[in-house]
């Protein structure tokens, strides 16, 4: 009898630890070192995808809106998944959405936005991936939220989720 109680207690503890750890997994801790938040990203200029003219990032920023830079590529599978959220973000009046096309062929990139729709107000080309790395990207996709002085407000590494989407809308509504 005593033995059974021991096992029962052991089982309870096991289940409890399991539940705690299970919850811990889903806690959001994909974090960006806080040293990078609120710091200016490096200013850059690049050629646009459609018109092929040189554009400086400063010229795209508007005083009353927030700027979102989304780093994407036509060959990147997670970029397709987050595309629907980008299309919705495009509708928001306070958001300027800029695409940074990472290591891609212009023809394929054009085909991509033709097929899936173009969420971006401007698409800049980064054929060698230098700009993306310079502003601190690790890979594609990544999404940066900047204020009108190019300060990094928030950074999402990897595919945007619905939760991230809601977060962005909340920032834009402020």
């Amino acid at each position: 009898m005593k033995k059974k109680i021991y096992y029962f207690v052991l089982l309870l503890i096991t289940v409890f630890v399991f539940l705690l750890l299970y919850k811990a997994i889903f806690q959001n801790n994909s974090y960006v070192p806080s040293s990078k938040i609120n710091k200016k990203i490096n200013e850059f200029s690049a050629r646009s995808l459609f018109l092929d003219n040189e554009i400086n990032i400063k010229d795209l920023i508007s005083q009353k809106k927030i700027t979102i830079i989304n780093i994407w590529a036509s060959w990147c599978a997670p970029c397709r998944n987050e595309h629907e959220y980008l299309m919705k973000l495009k509708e928001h009046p306070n958001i300027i959405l800029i695409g940074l096309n990472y290591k891609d062929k212009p023809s394929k990139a054009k085909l991509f936005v033709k097929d899936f729709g173009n969420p971006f107000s401007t698409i800049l080309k980064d054929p060698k991936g230098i700009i993306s790395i310079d502003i601190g990207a690790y890979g594609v996709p990544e999404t940066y939220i900047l204020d009108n002085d190019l300060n990094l407000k928030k950074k999402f590494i990897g595919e945007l989720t619905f939760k991230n989407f809601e977060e962005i809308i909340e920032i834009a509504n402020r």
Partner: protein
Amino acid sequence: MLISQIGNYSLILGLILSIYLIIYLFLGIYGFTKNNLNNIYSILFLQLFSVLISFFSLIYSFVVSDFTNETVYNNSHTTKPLFYKISGTWGNHEGSLLLWLLVLTLFIFLFLIYSKKQPKNYRLNTIVFQQIIISGFFLFVLFTSNPFNYLFPKPTEGLGLNPILQDPALAIHPPILYLGYVGSSIIFSASLSALVSKNINSSWAHHIKKWVLLSWIFLTFGIMLGSIWAYYELGWGGFWFWDPVENVSLMPWFCLTALLHSISVLEKRLILKSWTLILSIATFSLSMSGTFLVRSGILNSVHTFANDPERGVFILIFLFILILISILIFFFFETDEKILENKIYWLSKETFILINNWFMVFFLSVVLIGTTYPIFLEVLTSDKISVGPPFYQKLLIPFLIPFLFFMAVGPNLKWIKNDFKKINIKKFFLLIFICFIASLFTEKLNINNLFIIILIFSSFYLFVSSLSDLIYKKKNFSQNISHFAFSILILSIIFNGILSKEFSGNMRVGDEIDFNSNIIEFQKIETFDKENYKSIIGTFKIEDRKKKIILLKPEIRVYNQPNILTSEADIKTSFYEDKFLVFSILNQDNIFNVRYQVKPFMIWIWISTFLLIFGGLIRFTKIK
């Protein structure tokens, strides 16, 4: 591309074989069919072979930079040196799991070969348990982290060119650690199987001891390599940081060390059966939890791989299934140990080994709580706390003192005997003599902390007594050498901790600073352009009291793509102390932040760990 396909399909074949084997053996054990050992040999070999093919096809994809393979694309680059292309195979999440699988299948095959003296039923049961673990890993690899995912269109260049990860110690550190972890899985399966087939006896203990030793050797070596990497490459100026990922490798080590001692008691006296089994199960569960904590992204640490909740959930569920299976098996098969007719001998070897086990469990609990408590707290209250070195030092050091005393006395006692004679007058005088020496020592070094004084005293005692054992006793050479090595390890850690000196401050070229009667002079900086980085090398002249001069040349590397700054420390090693200097750029022009450290007995930490492992190796070769 074709090669990746082959790799993928041979993984699927491996999984099918695993499931087939579980069903086949299960039917055999319960008497529905007859198990033919030769068949099992060939199936296990085929499984090993298919994983081997998978593994080599991944290596091949890395070598030829086949970017249609997602793993290669994410972790490699055409300009990487060949050595790092190959080591990149297991330097990432997917590849490292493939390595796990390879070692798992290799070890179970070896187990079958080297367990011929054991009853057939026990061997077959062990294979069943091990195949349950193996099939779990197959499913994990195939469904959540397949190393052979296909990318189309083919990217022209890979993403993996992180310079910090290009280091030889890092290339072999994970595989060695895995050998230790996976070895513990064999111990786990064998223990459950011994329980089910009622095969817990001295011959079993003798046979499983080999696997315990093997995992212990690899685990110790793996932890040491990680520590060497942190010291020489990360340039943080220390060898252990109580980082969560370091801790998760230390926890199974405590367990395994306890097991290593208690298994001898089981072998010699047939007591502590359940306790030994619990330790075996705990060792593997802790290794798995380590994998879970690192791979699920719950911990934020330098080592953590990409976050992916799906993977975390899989390992968590799998881990708890294994734990539940073990609890159930314990519940149904555990037999009460016979109450010993003869009385307990308080001054016998087995009592002291049990004391060792209690201490190990205590150390383990401290580290376990320090590592997991912040996670639990965050879930329950969403407070973020971090547990640092002072926590571990405050809790571990006081208990280290009696531990060292017991360790000095224990090996000289006899099995099943109260042995008062061994603790004789001679030892007593030795104790007083060491007390005297140690107090002179602490006086000279000006140490006032009572704890530290007693700690130095007790580790000196262990040092002298294990040294005399090593010289005068012919028996148990391996044990004596390991205990001796451990005493050196503890002594050098203590002296390293209390005698380290650090200077940290800002300097310009031409500055001179007086630090503990050493003169540090910042002589010059030079800049060189290297292939993919700019190198800034500073020259520092250090003149000590005896006018001896050394030059230290630390480096700062500015990589252009990706834009990363790394500081390479310059370390001058001698038997007495390490001189460590690292510098970094500040925002103002021409001013550098300089950190200079003198770390006594650093090299002895590595030497003694090597000796510790060497002792284990000797023991391993002596077991027949």
